[in-house]
């Protein structure tokens, strides 16, 4: 029974972390699909969202409003980043663009450090500190929230891409940007929108995880890197596969932490990254979807 409750506990913590990685990974896939850029600053949007939200809540702003405002603020930062750093360099080689996003990530980290300092902040859980008991395992309500919110976001995005005009325009840019432009779709606006949307998703991820793991200026890098692993495992341009990849990374890490050693969990997820890169560069799920983009 002891072993079973530990298993459930690890399963839930893996799903929680996985849902966070999935939100960030989804933003990454959207950015990559529309602009062809591997945005290494993606995780920092989560960090900014979490820290904004903590500050607003601590200053008496109602919780839901604080979440909304933080997401909007981070989306604005994402848009600014696109205009100031990505647009001027969009004709540069891929490697240059990657390094530019690293530079941007450093700027975000640094600014957060100047504004919020090095201490981690705590955000209160969405619905009290209560916990759920399942098979002897103690599961925080916040974990349930994390999973629900990410699933709801995926559903909303799915509807957006398949049911709305703008969503279809974005999808058109992904499939064939040249043709999309001929049809009168403004690709530069799409690029701006894609990065802003990714920033918003990242911010949401950061806000959801903040009550569980705290918010600090340097939380972005690891979340971002894990999200990339998830996206690469999923094949970079395939959103459902990236989500699956994110849960895989989350569960792998959680079980590695529980059954092996917490110190090696990073090595395990990056080991997975290397294996996938070497042996299946189109991602683990390339065959499953039957489509190579």
């Amino acid at each position, binding site marked *: 029974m002891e072993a079973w409750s530990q298993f459930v506990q690890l399963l839930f913590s893996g799903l929680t972390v996985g849902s966070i990685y999935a939100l960030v990974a989804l933003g990454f896939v959207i950015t990559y699909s529309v602009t062809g850029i591997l945005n290494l600053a993606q995780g920092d949007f989560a960090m900014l969202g979490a820290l904004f939200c903590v500050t607003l809540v601590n200053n008496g702003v109602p919780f839901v409003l604080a979440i909304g405002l933080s997401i909007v603020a981070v989306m604005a930062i994402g848009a600014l980043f696109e205009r100031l*750093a990505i647009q001027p360099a969009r004709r540069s080689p891929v*490697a240059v663009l990657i390094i530019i996003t690293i530079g941007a990530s*450093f700027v975000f980290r640094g600014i957060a450090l100047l504004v919020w300092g090095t201490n981690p902040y705590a955000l209160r859980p969405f619905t009290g500190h209560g916990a759920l008991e399942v098979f002897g395992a103690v599961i925080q309500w916040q974990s349930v929230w994390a999973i629900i919110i990410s699933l709801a976001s995926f559903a909303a995005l799915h509807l957006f891409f398949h049911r709305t005009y703008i969503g279809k325009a974005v999808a058109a840019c992904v499939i064939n940007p040249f043709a999309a432009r001929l049809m009168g779709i403004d690709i530069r606006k799409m690029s701006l929108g894609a990065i802003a949307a990714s920033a918003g998703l990242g911010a949401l991820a950061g806000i959801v995880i903040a009550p569980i793991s705290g918010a600090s200026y340097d939380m972005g890098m690891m979340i971002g890197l894990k999200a990339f692993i998830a996206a690469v495992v999923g094949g970079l341009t395939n959103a459902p596969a990236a989500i699956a990849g994110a849960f895989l990374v989350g569960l792998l890490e959680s079980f590695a932490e529980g059954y092996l050693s917490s110190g090696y969990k990073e090595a395990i997820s990056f080991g997975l990254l290397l294996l996938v890169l070497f042996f299946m560069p189109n991602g683990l799920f390339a065959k499953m979807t039957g489509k190579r983009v």
Partner: protein
Amino acid sequence: MEHGQRMTGGRKRWLWLAGAAVWLGLPWLVFGNNYVLSTLVLIGLYALVGTGMTLLMGYAGQISLGQAAFYGMGAYTSAYLTAHAGWPAWLALVAGAALAALVALVVGIPVFRLREHYLALATLGFGVIMFTFFKEWKGITGGLNGFFGIPPIRIAGIPLQSDFQFYYLVSSFVLAGGWFARNVVRSRVGRALRAIHGSEVAASSLGVNITKYKLQIFMLSAVYASVAGSLYAHYVTFINPDLFGIIPSIYFLIMVIIGGTASVWGGLVGAAVYVCLGEWLKAVVPLLLPNAGGEFEIVFFGLLLVIMLIYMPNGLTGVAPKGLRRFWKTSWRQSERATAVDSHKARSIGGEQG
């Protein structure tokens, strides 16, 4: 490269001699000021790493986001072999370099089949994995607490402990490293690398063994980093894993970009600018922003990196000569194709991966 060959041999020799004279005379010019000397030593150590990375990035056109792993490998090998196994420091330094070269070979074989995004991610992943080992392999590395009491390096039985002595040691390594890199670049290997950089397909159709050359240069860059790491370990006598993580790898990258990958001396220029700017910021920023924490330079270096890449992609050594502009402009052909349409880089690369 080209501009260098246009210079007459005599003028070049004078330039070299003058440079060497300044380098050798520097410790006296700074009146034995230990702060300045230790800064110079640091520049020299970073310059060594940077020279290796310049070869890799500028000449072979390959990106590495995990170079600090090799730096750490040298440092830990030296630390362990001298402190625990009683080896002489020189032998430990060579052992570290050999280990780094071996690891670069083993890691490089699969890694260099990848390109661009994938290559960047793979080298980053390698960096994180090595960092985990430095952190977790406590019996060898001392874990997060670090590794204390690394014995000094000795020349003819005399331990090198002062900044003054270390300046000469490190500077001779930098000069030798720069000279060697310059010869590599001008040799058959260098020409092959530039061919690879220009077009991998064209190079291979001319009979250039692309994988072999990329691997060799990766191993060489690992040796540069490892030697610098060994020297660092013997210089400060204390190391910890944070010195060899992803952030230091990115700092090395920033140095190389600032200096420019166009010349083998880009690493030295970049290291000098990076260290001096860092020291200057440490002195100035607290006056302007009294509440700033310890890492405020990262904002500045992040901005500098972005601005350099957008407006001065060839770095400081690449501003003038035209031939050197080749690195960023023609290395990645896919991206050129993509200039016609703003966004479609993703799929053209993804397609070629399969």
